[in-house]
């Protein structure tokens, strides 16, 4: 593929005042000497981004312009109207399955999107008339496009005004200024510094922020613990509902990931804050969320295995790469089956009823008095108490682990760490951000070790399971099994390394300095 250099172009956008039609503007434009209409056409434009607006967050807009036999993907700056690059393509972005012809663009996109797919965010239909503005040599100094905009939404066409785009030809900016003055003064067009795409995406940014699964709910320290926890639980219910459609449609794997994390956090909070809610009321929810967590598990496991296959391939000598294809194919088949099952669950009565009852419960005022409940405690007091107690438990479990301890002990400790992490994240807004960051960083390092140990265990079990499932008559050769064996060997080796690393990670986590920091921050 030929790789050519990008050409940035600064465009100027103007919006006509409300009520002024494209036809009226074109009439006044046509009076300017050197202006000549060159074309008139309709085109559709779709702004793409990830579900949580990662490209926009990175200051970039991605617009797909439909054309004959394909279209053009344009990348524009989100804060001004600079066209960063454009590329003709046969198809609009179907998630990840498309290519950019320059490695630096592709690197940026991959880094920016991570595991998220590009999804259509805003659809526009444009009615465009294009004009050339030439000098006395009939040389183009600028192109002027007059576009009537319609925003397409749920089958409706919402009028979006008329924009005028001035595209100065390089080296003619000074003379084009005169043209722009006439456009803004005589025709009354208003300079739109942000540009149409930027403005529309800015409107979506509130929605993007709402779609984050990052647990950072700003809590009022004066709130009673129960009320604060209800706020967090409501946020988590929102995360579940926001991601539900993406899980059902399988747009990308992150929808299910975020959906599951919200379930786990909900369960964890309900499990640890028993004194804030009547047990008989929340126990049915704990059971139902446990069921939902289990229902989402098999598909997530397959998603993770599929993500790991390229890493497994890397472990193999180059001659063996490719022999894991039957495993990949098996996983893809299973992924379809499990996705169908999960979709049925999410469309089913049990799930609908759970979410409806849960929402209703979160909105319901809690009983004033309830024996055994710590109703009047402030959120700060409960947060400190729960975090410290959870922290002590992690330390206790960690100190009890030695070289002879069974793997189960590390898995148990991993779960305790998760619970502690959820608590810290849940209440992080109540503590100084810089101090909480240090504590979270320390936690992350320990969790990374425990998480990898658990992942390796699961991968080893998974590979053994797949080996049993692979159909030898369906293209699987002994070489596939040999390759899987080689991967298993690597995983076992790494598992031993990770197990050894645990000691130093935990030593750092449980150091005097770190313990003092924890105690200081969360002491009563």
């Amino acid at each position, binding site marked *: 593929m030929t790789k050519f*250099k990008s050409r940035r172009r600064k465009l100027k956008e103007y919006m006509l005042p409300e009520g002024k039609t494209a036809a009226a503007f074109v009439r006044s434009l046509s009076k300017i000497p050197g202006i000549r209409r060159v074309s008139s056409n309709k085109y559709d434009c779709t702004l793409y981004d990830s579900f949580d607006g990662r490209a926009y967050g990175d200051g970039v807009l991605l617009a797909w312009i439909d054309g004959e036999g394909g279209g053009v993907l344009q990348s524009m700056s989100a804060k001004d109207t600079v066209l960063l690059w454009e590329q003709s393509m046969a198809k609009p972005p179907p998630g990840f399955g498309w290519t950019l012809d320059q490695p630096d663009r592709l690197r940026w996109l991959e880094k920016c999107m991570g595991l998220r797919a590009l999804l259509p965010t805003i659809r526009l239909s444009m009615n465009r008339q294009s004009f050339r503005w030439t000098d006395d040599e009939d040389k183009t100094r600028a192109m002027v496009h007059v576009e009537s905009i319609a925003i397409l939404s749920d089958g409706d066409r919402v009028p979006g005004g008329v924009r005028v785009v001035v595209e100065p030809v*390089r080296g003619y900016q000074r003379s084009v200024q005169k043209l722009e003055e006439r456009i803004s003064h005589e025709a009354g067009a208003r300079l739109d510094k942000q540009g149409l795409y930027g403005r529309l995406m800015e409107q979506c940014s509130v929605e993007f922020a709402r779609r984050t699964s990052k647990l950072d709910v700003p809590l009022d320290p004066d709130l009673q613990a129960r009320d604060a926890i209800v706020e967090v639980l409501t946020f988590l219910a929102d995360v579940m509902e926001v991601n539900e459609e993406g899980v059902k449609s399988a747009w990308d794997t992150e929808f299910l990931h975020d959906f599951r994390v919200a379930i786990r956090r909900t369960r964890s909070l309900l499990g640890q804050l028993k004194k804030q809610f009547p047990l008989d009321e929340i126990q049915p929810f704990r059971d139902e969320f446990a069921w939902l967590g289990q229902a989402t598990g098999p598909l997530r496991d397959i998603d993770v295995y599929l993500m790991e296959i390229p890493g497994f391939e890397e472990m193999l000598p180059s001659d063996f790469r490719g022999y894991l294809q039957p495993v990949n194919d098996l996983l893809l088949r299973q992924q379809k089956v499990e996705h169908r099952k999960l979709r049925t669950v999410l469309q089913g009565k049990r799930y609908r009823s759970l979410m409806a009852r849960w929402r209703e419960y979160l909105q319901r005022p809690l009983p004033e008095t309830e024996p055994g409940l710590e109703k009047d405690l402030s959120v700060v007091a409960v947060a400190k108490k729960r975090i410290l107690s959870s922290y002590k438990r992690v330390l206790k479990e960690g100190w009890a682990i030695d070289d002879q301890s069974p793997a189960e002990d590390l898995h148990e400790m991993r779960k305790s760490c998760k619970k502690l992490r959820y608590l810290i994240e849940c209440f992080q807004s109540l503590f100084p951000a810089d101090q909480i960051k240090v504590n979270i960083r320390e936690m992350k390092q320990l969790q990374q070790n425990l998480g990898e140990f658990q992942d390796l265990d699961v991968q080893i079990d998974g590979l053994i399971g797949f080996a049993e499932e692979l159909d030898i008559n369906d293209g699987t050769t002994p070489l596939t099994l040999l390759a899987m064996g080689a991967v298993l060997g690597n995983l076992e080796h790494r598992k031993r390394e990770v197990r050894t690393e645990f000691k130093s990670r935990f030593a750092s986590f449980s150091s005097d300095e770190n313990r003092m920091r924890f105690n200081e921050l969360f002491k009563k």
Partner: protein
Amino acid sequence: MKVIACYNIKGGVGKTAAAVNLSYLAAKEGASTLVWDLDPQGAASFYFRIKPKVQMGGTGLLRRKRALEKVIKGTDYPGLDLIPADFSYRNLDLILEGFSKPQNRLRKLLKPIAKEYDYVFFDCAPSISLVSENVFTAADIVLVPTIPTTLSLRTLDQLVTFIAKRGYGNFQLVPFFSMVDRRKNIHRLITTHRPMGLGKFIDPVIPYASVVEKMGTQRTPLEVYARSSPAAVAFRSLWDELKTRL
């Protein structure tokens, strides 16, 4: 960034037609392309309807840092820009003599824009001079349009000797036959029995055609108004051949 210089000691051999048509083809493929009209006659600028005038003149262009970026003009074709000619270019030799390493000046000037362009085409003035030596230092390919006549071959021979004597060996010398009139015996004879020792002539042959001359009235590349003409087809083959050498 690759630099292709359309060059010949002789004038009227089709240098400008080659620079304009080949640069257009490069840009049409999506390459970011620049033509530098080094000929004070300004024919390439004329073909692109751009006034042959550089505000800072030849002196300013050669002396100022990052001067090229300030004088580049966009053509009417996406991805294709031009540094216009200026009448002061007739004195470029004299201006260049004022620099300590005069033969490297053009190459140095191109450095700041190397990130921006995939191809730069020089449309050179006919002569052999300090400007020519600058061209030899900056170019990856020196493309020599040659009319198949005895005198043209003689000047090509002079060029080959000059390059060898001065030791300019960092570029490919690529002669090709231009303005070939099949009705003329000498043209037929020379194009079929290609001369030895004058660099390897590449296959595509640009025919003598009135449609090429019409570029002067159309003021656009051939591809725009006579895409299916034999001359346009020949320029496409020439460009395809050149790409294999870059």
